[in-house]
């Protein structure tokens, strides 16, 4: 489903220092697989996600999604993005639109669904994430957990083939993390292809098919959750786990 080959990505900071975010990075994600990427901040996890829908551009290498090289000059990136849902750390809901409008807008203007159809899809998804009763309020009137669940519904409304989560629970109060993780777990069980950048080790252990541990733009260690948490091989992984567990 996703194939990344020899990806390099370097950022230039405002004071003109170069930061290598991805160094010869290669990995793949199969259909219906749930891959969790963990690692210290600045290790390139989020950059990798953002390069998967070209919110950031890679310097070299290639990324192939569903058989299409998404860095090919001839492709329409908007078409690719329709198939990849993204959930952000800071939700990024549209504050001037109601919950329902947030979930229906892209369906109507991008997927060209008519109003009735878009509303039906939206109501179904809002029910699924458990906020049906809030469909006419504005995002500012919702809690962080509720906002993030709306953001998930908004991404799902496009009926994407892949869902990406960029530290989706990092900005939430502790008591709201569970409600968002529950929605993500449901999705995983339904067979959604997911790439999840997170600090939630419980989630990684429970639902991931594979865990990737990154540091300094490279994969340090990669394996099943069980292998990863019980039997890490690398010293860097052991150190990281000892610090967070």
């Amino acid at each position, binding site marked *: 489903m996703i194939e990344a080959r020899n990806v390099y990505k370097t950022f230039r900071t405002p004071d003109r220092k170069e930061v290598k975010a991805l160094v010869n990075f290669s990995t793949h994600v199969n259909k219906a697989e749930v891959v969790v990427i963990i690692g210290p901040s600045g290790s390139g996890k989020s950059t990798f996600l953002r390069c998967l829908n070209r*919110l950031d551009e890679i310097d070299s290498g290639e990324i192939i999604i569903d058989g299409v090289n998404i860095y090919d000059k001839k492709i329409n990136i908007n078409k690719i993005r329709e198939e990849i849902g993204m959930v952000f750390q800071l939700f*990024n809901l549209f504050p001037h639109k109601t919950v329902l409008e947030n979930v229906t*807008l892209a369906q109507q*203007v991008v*997927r060209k669904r008519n109003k009735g159809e878009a509303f039906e899809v939206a109501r179904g998804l809002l029910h699924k994430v458990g906020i049906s009763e809030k469909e006419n309020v504005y995002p500012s009137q919702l809690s962080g957990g509720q906002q993030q669940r709306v*953001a998930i519904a908004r991404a799902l409304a496009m009926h994407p083939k892949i869902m990406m989560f960029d530290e989706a629970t990092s900005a939430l109060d502790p008591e709201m993390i569970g409600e968002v993780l529950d929605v993500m777990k449901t999705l995983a069980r339904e067979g959604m292809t997911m790439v999840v950048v997170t600090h939630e080790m419980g989630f990684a252990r429970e639902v991931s098919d594979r865990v990737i541990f990154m540091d300094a733009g490279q994969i340090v260690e990669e394996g099943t959750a069980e292998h990863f948490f019980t039997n890490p091989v690398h010293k860097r992984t052991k150190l990281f786990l000892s610090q967070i567990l």
Partner: protein
Amino acid sequence: MTFNKRSLITVGILSIITASIYYFFTQKGIIYIWHWEKIPEMLFYYGSKSADDPTPKFRMGVLMMGFVLTLKISVFSIFFGIIIGTVVGIARLSHEPVTRGLSLSYVELIRNTPLLVQIYIIYFFVGSILRLSAFAAGTAALSIFAGAYVGEIVRAGIQSIHKGQMEASRSLGMSYGRAMRHIILPQAFKRIIPPLAGQFISLIKDSSLVSVIALADLMFQAQQAFARTYYAFEIYFTVALLYLVMTFTLSMATQYIERRLAISD
């Protein structure tokens, strides 16, 4: 405090200030015979206009005609100013160096030359080439002038929207244009209403400069009426009040819009 109460208080304060000035004036003992009774007929009168149009009926006096023209030219200029400004504001943030350079040149050129000079250039130079009427030339000059300032306000408004909004829109498959139209600009416009209101209030006042190209706006009519009658105080107090009616209405209207849009905050 309700909307009406607040505007009432503002009007009240303004009347007190006007009354005080008037009182001060008369106490200083300037010898001046007031002719306020001549002002109403400069606003409205009943009668015939000329031999061509002899039917007696209610007609607009010269100041009211000027008021209407100023209102018209202001409304047109604000409308085109918003359109030009939006295009320029977006162009200023373009990834194309040429688009960015052109829009920046426009803004710098217009902001750094006097409006009066621009009015003359557009009327005499551009106007004669394109055979523009004085009204068209005046509206064009004011629109182009306002567009430069509005462009900078729009640019600042767009930049003030968190970049996550654009990223979320793009990640849903929206093009840059769609994201601008549905997500970024609506939020930006809501935020820039106060500076826009200030800009358009300035524009209404600046429109008095078009009187130099013989456009019969409020200022022009006032000068004519003054030349005919020498009632300087009465005429210019009235003119100030008429400008105030326009600007104050605009000010109130924008405050109303601001409150209306605040519901999603």
